[in-house]
């Protein structure tokens, strides 16, 4: 009767069975830290006066690197020194890595059945490959580095089923925004989300990662998709170590079930200042934009760049708009160069940079001024998220971002 979450948490805590609400201590397969959450964790770790479990620690500077200022340089240095001091091999220096969640997946740390924690809320992305993965704080990350274990409250699981046929230019982003628009930003609070249905089965791994990535925007603890051949093929030759896929039982008990018809899902935009504040892109054509941002752990993969390039090919970005394109990893950047996508972006007058999280959280490389409007392929549109408190962020899929960059206003690509 268990769900995927319950099975993974039972196995990792050495129990036959766990029940929702139960608090367990479980063995963690990997703990990931970034440059922002790393520093406080390293300070706490010193208190333990022990060595970290180096093989299970992954350190990925990505938020404020390349260093945006002296303070962030110090922060990045603290991570580099921690990696050197303890000979942590899984450290990805600027120029070798990218946005942490993309890298965790690309580098084969993520696999079905694993329990992975990360000091970053979008760690839930790894559910797209059948892992139970969730965001934690810095103190907890320090505890996992020291002991390899962490306490968890076993969550109830909600089942989301998406069937039907996807409309043109509808992507994983629109599916998850549609769901969050329906259940709200606390609709999955303390719960695990599992995604099923013919639409989910047909989606690319990239689109599935977008869905799992934004589980946290509904308050979810994890966003899990049962692994299939697409996942196994992706992991072939890439995965580190062995893995065993885990599926829910046919009679698994879910706290709630939600069913959606894909035909009703259109290119969707989340308006300021919460991801639940959704509307069809086609209804927001009156909103002019200053910036179009394509990148992040949510939508910075090669598939995202391809669809944006397809729309931008041979076109110019609107004269009142700046477009910023940030591939989520070095590998994606290289592939985009090889496929000619970067040339398309540059010919259209987009600015292209190497991977960083910078703009997504209002750090740097695309901060908004007072009153400015950004259409963004990222995951949060909170007040001041990408800059000034009076700037506004509209979340959308990469095709909507590209189409809007051309017209200078929020645009459903089907209108082009």
């Amino acid at each position, binding site marked *: 009767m268990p769900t995927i979450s319950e099975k993974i948490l039972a196995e990792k805590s050495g129990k036959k069975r766990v029940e929702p609400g139960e608090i367990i201590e479980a063995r963690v397969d990997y703990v990931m830290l970034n440059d*922002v959450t790393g520093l*406080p964790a390293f300070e706490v770790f010193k208190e*333990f006066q022990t060595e970290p479990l180096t093989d299970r620690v992954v350190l990925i500077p990505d938020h404020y690197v390349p260093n945006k200022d002296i303070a962030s340089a110090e922060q990045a240095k603290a991570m580099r020194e921690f990696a050197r001091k303890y000979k942590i091999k899984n450290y990805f220096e600027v120029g070798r890595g990218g946005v942490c969640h993309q890298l965790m997946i690309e580098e084969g740390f993520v696999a079905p059945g694993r329990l992975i924690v990360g000091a*970053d809320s979008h760690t839930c992305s790894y559910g797209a490959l059948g892992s139970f993965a969730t*965001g934690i704080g810095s103190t907890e990350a320090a505890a996992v580095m020291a*002991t390899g274990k962490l306490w968890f*409250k076993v969550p109830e699981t909600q089942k989301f089923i998406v069937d039907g046929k996807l409309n043109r230019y509808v992507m994983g982003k629109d599916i998850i925004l549609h769901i969050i628009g329906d259940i709200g*930003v606390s609709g999955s609070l303390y719960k695990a989300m599992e995604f099923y249905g013919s639409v989910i089965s047909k989606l690319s791994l990239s689109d599935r990662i977008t869905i799992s990535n934004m589980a946290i925007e509904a308050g979810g603890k994890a966003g899990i998709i049962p692994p299939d051949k697409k996942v196994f093929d992706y992991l072939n030759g890439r995965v580190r170590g062995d893995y065993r896929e885990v599926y829910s039982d046919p009679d698994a008990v879910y706290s709630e079930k939600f069913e959606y018809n894909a035909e009703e899902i259109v290119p969707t935009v989340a308006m300021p200042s919460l991801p639940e504040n959704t509307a069809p892109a086609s209804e927001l054509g009156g909103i002019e934009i200053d910036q179009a941002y394509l990148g992040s752990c949510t939508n910075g993969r090669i598939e995202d760049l391809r669809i944006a390039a397809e729309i931008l090919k041979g076109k110019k970005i609107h004269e009142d708009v700046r477009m910023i394109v940030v591939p989520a990893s070095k590998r994606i950047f290289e592939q985009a160069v090889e496929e000619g996508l970067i040339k398309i972006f540059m010919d259209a007058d987009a600015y292209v940079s190497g991977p960083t999280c910078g703009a997504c959280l*209002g750090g740097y490389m695309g901060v908004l001024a007072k009153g400015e409007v950004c259409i963004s392929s990222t995951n949060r549109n909170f007040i*001041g998220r990408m800059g000034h408190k009076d700037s506004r962020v509209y979340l959308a899929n990469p095709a909507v971002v590209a189409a809007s960059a051309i017209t200078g206003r929020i645009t459903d690509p089907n209108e082009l």
Partner: protein
Amino acid sequence: MNCDRCKKKFTDIGKKMKIQKKIRGRVWKFGDDVDTDQIIPAQYLVTGDPKELGEHAFENVRPGFARKVKEGDVIVAGKNFGCGSSREHAPRALIGAGISCVIAKSFARIFYRNSINIGLPVVECDVEAEDGDEVEVDFEKGIVEVNGKRYSFPSLPSFLLNLINSGGLVSYVKSKLSKLEKRC
């Protein structure tokens, strides 16, 4: 490592952890879905120091909060408090600002865990209050009292109570390590 400014060890913030039996404080009222970008904007995530972070708490949405907040004040909020980023800087900023407890209808889970782990008392309770009201929280009895009204809240699961009373996650891990529990 010591903080240059407050001369406190960073990790000391978890040490006042043992929940006091009762606290009394002045209310700061917030609504639903207060996200961690509101609690501490990302541009300040270049330090882990609670005091420094506290100086910028709620800067965008409540200008002047950091200046006006008094040691011991209490936040009363709606649903999903602390949603968004996993940044532990958010509860650290509230501790640094002097907040003694957050009462909310519900909490985002990472914020909730972080708070428990570093010693910011969090109470899940739907309370009616306004800015400046006096609120009393009785942790032993599980009662919040404000404006003559009493609200009860369920006690924490015993695992979490033990975690808190053993001094937070840092002390808990230290004691586990000292027992030479086999790491696996």
